[in-house]
Structure formats: structure tokens, C-alpha cells
């Protein structure tokens, strides 16, 4: 991949992250929103986090162990946060 193409890819990713941010932000304006609003917001945030790890931190091309550890963390923290949101009584 030449330089220009890899930089374009980063800019495209940034645009996607901004779009996801706008979407989550828009969903928060209705205070009496449906229950799944929070689930969607948390999952979208962790999708953004995954791409920051893979493409900004460049973990996509790092040794497998590091990638597995970080992607594993994303999955575990997503599940924990969504679980606590849906089942607040434990």
C-alpha cells in the first residue's frame, strides 16, 4: 500500500468514527428513549474503541497475542457494561 492510500484509509476511518459519534449523540436527545438506546450507545462506543485500537494504535498488524488480549478486553467490557445496564438488580 503506498503512503497516500494508507493515509486516505486513516481519514476514512476518522469519518466513520465521527459518523458513529453523531449517531450516538443524536440518540441521546430523547430522554424518554427506549431501553435498548443505552445498549446501542455502549456497543457503538466499544466498536469505536476497537477501531482506535486496531488502526490508530496499529494493533491490526501487531503480534497475535496483543491483538487477542485487546480485542478480548473489548468483548468482556462490552458484555459487562451491557449486562449491568440490562440487569441493574444483579
Amino acid at each position, binding site marked *: 500500500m503506498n503512503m497516500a492510500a*494508507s493515509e486516505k484509509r486513516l481519514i476514512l476511518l*476518522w469519518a466513520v468514527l465521527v459518523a458513529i459519534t453523531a449517531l450516538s449523540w443524536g440518540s*441521546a436527545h430523547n430522554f424518554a428513549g427506549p431501553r435498548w438506546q443505552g445498549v446501542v450507545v455502549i456497543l457503538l*462506543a466499544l466498536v469505536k474503541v476497537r477501531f*482506535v*485500537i486496531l488502526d490508530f494504535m496499529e494493533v491490526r498488524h501487531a503480534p497475535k497475542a*496483543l491483538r487477542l488480549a485487546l480485542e478480548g478486553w473489548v468483548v468482556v467490557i462490552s458484555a*459487562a457494561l451491557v449486562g449491568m445496564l440490562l440487569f*441493574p438488580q*444483579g
Partner: protein
Amino acid sequence: MKRLPGEEGIWVLIAGDLLVFSLFFLTFMYYRAGEMAVFLASQRTLSLGFGLANTLLLLTSSLFVAIATQRLRVTGKPAPKLYMAAIACGLGFVGDKAVEWGDKFHAGIGFTTNDFYMLYFAFTGIHLFHVLLGMGVLSFLTIACQRPNATTRGLVLIESGAIFWHLVDLLWIVLFALFYLVR
């Protein structure tokens, strides 16, 4: 081809910080579950626009840092202005936070108002400390990327600094979602 970006040590620091902040995120959800009404009412007094602006500032700064670091490695050309642009975004973040917190203090809202605001000031405060630290790191990168060894022995150090700045961005993404957006 697999290659570890940055020094090994930076990943130890990242892992430690992720675990500490994971604990913060879970603590927030735990208190929220116990005092849902207080948390939802307090959340309504936060400024969504300030939170959004800060998220966009950090995302954009991350883009500048990622491009500068990649360009240095691929073409050997330093891009100190991109690191400076990222520092400017960081300054914007700090200014935004100062105005936002100032508004809250002015309205009589502080650390001891309730559990929501206690966690809010504690966790976003610790994050703000990371932003300030990160701006110091970025200042170093503007100089380090112009040194003769920047594409050889100096590269991993520059990558490490960039990775730390992306961590600052990453942590804010989750804080913004939990404090401002989850209804």
C-alpha cells in the same frame, strides 16, 4: 508481516490503565443501577454539546497523530505540524472542560452534590490529567520526530508516545458514552 508498534513497556502501561478505567466504568454502572433516578436527573444537567465537541476534538487529534506517525515510518518525513495540530486539539479539550466545569461550579454543582457528580468529577478529572500528560508527550514528539534517529532507533519511542495519545482518545469515548449518552 507482524510487528509490535512501540516499546513493550508502553503496552504494559496501556494494559494497566485499561484495567483501572474498566474498574471506573463498572463502578459507574454499579452506582447507576442503585440510584437510577438521581443519575438520570443529574445526567440531564450535563452539557451534551460540550461532551460532543470534546469527543470530536480527541478523534481529530488522534487522526493527526496517526498520520504523522505513519508518514514518518513509511516515508521518513517528519510532520511536526501534525503533532502541533493535535496539541491544539488537546488545548481545545482542556478549554472546553474548563468552561463546562466552570458552568457547573457556578450553578452550585460540585464534587459533593451527589454520587453521579462525585464519579463524574473524579473520573473525568483523572482523564483530564491524562490529556495534560499526553500533551506533554506530543510536545516531545514534535521535537523527537525531527531528530536524525527518528526513523531508526527513535521510532519506537515516537510510536509509544502516539499510542499513549490514542489511549487518551479511547478512554474518553467510553466516558462520554456512559456519563452523557446512555439513557
